[in-house]
């Protein structure tokens, strides 16, 4: 039952002395837009039902129809959770030592980039548009002196706060 208790936000390849300060993902509006799109497909069987239920041969296929509806819902459920999985596995983690970007683009398509806090030179944020301003999301760009010169996280929530947290972590090294 440990999944129902607060987590320490541990992650793969975490150093023993490394402390997780922040875990963030893209803004929920991204997930919401995907789910809304799938939600439209959820209504499709009911639209078809309203069209065919009054036909005289509907009783012949009613069981067959509801069987295919259940398959349809099962497929949508799986597709929805595939999107949810990708959303939850694409994270930006700020620790006491580094900033890590996890990119999961499929079951077997994973990439992780990291930047040490000591190598960060500049953090800039971009909030473009009324929706981004209203919902408080935007892009963060981190300039570094390291091999990977730039980090770019798009549509993250509360970019201003994230910048403050990273700056605070840099001061506390």
């Amino acid at each position, binding site marked *: 039952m440990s*999944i*129902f*208790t*607060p*987590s320490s*936000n*541990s*992650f*793969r390849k975490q150093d023993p002395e490394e402390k*997780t300060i922040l*875990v963030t993902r893209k803004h929920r509006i991204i997930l919401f837009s995907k789910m809304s799109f799938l939600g439209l497909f959820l209504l499709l069987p009911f639209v078809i039902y309203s069209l065919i239920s009054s036909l005289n*041969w509907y009783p*012949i*296929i009613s*069981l*067959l129809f*509801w*069987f295919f509806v*259940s*398959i349809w*819902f*099962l497929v949508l*459920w*799986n597709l929805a*959770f*595939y999107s*949810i*999985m990708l959303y*939850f*596995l694409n*994270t930006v*983690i700020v620790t006491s030592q580094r900033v890590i970007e*996890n990119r*999961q683009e499929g*079951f077997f398509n*994973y990439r992780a980039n990291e930047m040490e806090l000591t190598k960060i030179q500049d953090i800039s944020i971009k909030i473009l548009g009324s929706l981004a301003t209203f919902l408080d999301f935007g892009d963060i760009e981190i300039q570094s002196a390291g091999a990977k010169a730039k980090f770019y996280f798009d549509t993250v929530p509360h970019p201003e706060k994230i910048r403050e947290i990273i700056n605070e972590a840099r001061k506390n090294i």
Partner: protein
Amino acid sequence: MINTPLIIFSIIIGAYLWYTFSIVYHLIRFGVGREPKVLALIFFIGSFGLFVISLVLYSNIDWKETLQQLFNQISFFGK
């Protein structure tokens, strides 16, 4: 003798199980924090529930009779 419907059914079930396992595994193994683990549980319960519903509906259908009546209906429209 090769039982084609059984092979197709096995492939579909195999793909479904692999897909379900992959989602649950990724959320539990690589998810950071509590939320992905809870979502993996919700997904598993929902997926299992829908699978059982599909199976019950499948077993309730008299396939031979239904398809026969459906073909009769289609041929009636074709005349």
